């Protein structure tokens, strides 16, 4: 009996054909939830060239992997993926379905839940079992509050935020079954005609150990050049507030926050960012925040471990030199 079905990802550009990190995290969560719910963990993989990802899914905790492998499924499209996901869900009959809060998951989950005559809880930060329900802790009101919800109908469809769950350690000794799903690819009314990758070069925001972000207080797009230099010294990724992105100073793919990327680096350096709740929703999971802001009353200092109250223009050149020295040593 399957208690938890994970809808995995292995085809998105960011995973380059490997099993996505989020899917391993979901499988880790699924194993922990199923221990309390009773039952097994299944994983659905929809895409192309899934042989290796299916093996990895087993090593990451799946007892059964349902594989829908077809060239025409190489890219996520809701109309081709949804009927297959629903078919696998009917076959596995889980009480819980987990998806990542990703471009795919946020699009697929509400329609999948509705097709299965249930409902979805979006963007979980934490999962806990109470009886046969999963209690989902999630952020709301722009990150100002948390709510705990449970889905009363089955299957309980839940999307989960990246990096909020620990994966199991990958164990190639784990065994499991792979079941191929006969694919009848639905004819899509909506078709993807073009894909443009617009990610900045260098370290990916989500994966970076250090992130340097700039806000509206930078005053001009050129200042992002200074942040990029600083980032290069530290091996960091560069992010931006929505205000800076809306002004066209930096690409929207680098926006940090509620409607941008959620980051949780070891060090988040916020330069000329006020610390609005919607921005903090994307970076308050950072282990340490260093804020540089000329206003001592800025909200960002409520979250920061270290603060520099000054004009960033005065601070950055000296900081660049100091970082250079210390990085050369280490």
């Amino acid at each position, binding site marked *: 009996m399957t208690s938890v079905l994970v809808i995995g990802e292995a085809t998105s550009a960011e995973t380059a054909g490997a099993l996505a990190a989020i899917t391993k995290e979901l499988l880790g969560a699924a194993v922990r939830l199923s221990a309390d719910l009773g039952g097994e963990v299944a994983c659905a993989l929809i895409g192309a060239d899934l042989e290796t990802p299916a093996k990895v899914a087993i090593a990451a905790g799946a007892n059964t992997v349902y594989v829908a492998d077809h060239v025409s499924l190489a890219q996520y499209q809701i109309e081709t993926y949804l009927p297959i996901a629903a078919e696998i869900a009917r076959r596995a009959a889980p009480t819980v379905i987990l998806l990542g809060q*990703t471009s795919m998951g946020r699009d697929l989950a509400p329609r999948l839940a509705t097709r299965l005559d249930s409902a979805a809880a979006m963007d979980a930060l934490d999962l806990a079992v109470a009886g046969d329900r999963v209690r989902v802790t999630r952020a709301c*009101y*722009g990150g100002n509050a948390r709510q705990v919800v449970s889905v009363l109908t089955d299957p309980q469809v839940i999307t989960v935020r990246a990096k909020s769950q620990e994966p199991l350690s990958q164990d190639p000794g784990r065994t499991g079954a792979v079941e191929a799903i006969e694919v009848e690819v639905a004819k899509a009314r909506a078709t993807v005609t073009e894909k443009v990758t617009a990610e900045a070069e260098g370290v990916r925001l989500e994966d970076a150990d250090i992130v340097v972000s700039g806000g509206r207080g930078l005053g001009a797009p050129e200042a992002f050049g200074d942040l990029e230099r600083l980032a290069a010294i530290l091996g960091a990724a560069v992010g931006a507030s929505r205000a800076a*992105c809306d002004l066209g100073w930096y690409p929207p*793919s680098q926006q940090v926050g509620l409607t941008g990327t959620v980051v949780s680096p070891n060090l988040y350096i916020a330069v000329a960012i006020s610390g609005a709740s*919607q921005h903090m929703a994307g970076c308050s999971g950072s*282990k340490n925040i260093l804020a540089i802001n000329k206003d001592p009353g800025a909200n960002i200092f409520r979250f920061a471990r270290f603060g520099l109250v000054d004009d960033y223009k005065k*601070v950055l050149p000296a900081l660049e030199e100091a970082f250079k020295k*210390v990085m050369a040593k280490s």
Partner: protein
Amino acid sequence: MDFIVCVKQVPDPEAPASAFKVDEAAMKLLPAPGIDPVINPFDAQAVEAALQLRDAAGQGAIRILSLGPESARDVVKQALAMGADEGYQLSDPAFDGGDGWTTALALTKAIEKIGVPDVILCGRQAADFDQGAVGSVVAELLDLPSVTVLRAVALEGEHIVASRVVADGFETVRLPAPCLLTISNEFGDPRYPQLRQIMQAARKQVTVWGPADLGLATDQVGAAGARVKMEALYQPKTETECEFIKADTAEAQADLLVRKLREAKIL
């Protein structure tokens, strides 16, 4: 080409964090004194998208649909002032305590009653519970193709061409009407209504429907029909003690900071 735009009234998401208070026992947000609720910002952008698509099509009606308390009439009026033609409000105490599912179900019934238009527009998420689900649920109930989180939309003959924001860039999606689109902030600022339009909108009638008008039983709406139950609502404690780094010169300040970061094993 006809449109329906779903708009929700939400507590002002730009209100300062210090004005934000919840009543944990009642699991409700306390209204911030002196700060009025607003149209969900993404929904204002969805209205803007409808206006632009209608301009491109040359003609068509834009209808505004909102489920909420009586005060939600303000956001319907705002959308009318921006240039929409008709307003519909789903308002009845029986709708209270609903969730995304009951909201989507009621909106769907209302859309069917009005007549399914060529394009239904929603915001990417409502800036209260930040779920981002209702649009997709409506599309599923109506069996329409949907594209979510859009930064741009255009008409190409009979087709809609939408630019979808994805994690690593953008996707162009081409689809026929009827369809449902959800709009993201990358779309750009919505227009401000002119005074003359505000006055015209003030005079427009807004049709108000309750569950019975939609053919819904009382156990299909509001708290009785909800599929997601709230168990708790609280404000997370975020306060960390900030250590301010001060020194006489920028260089000394930078050196001191780096030393602290080293000591804390952050660098």
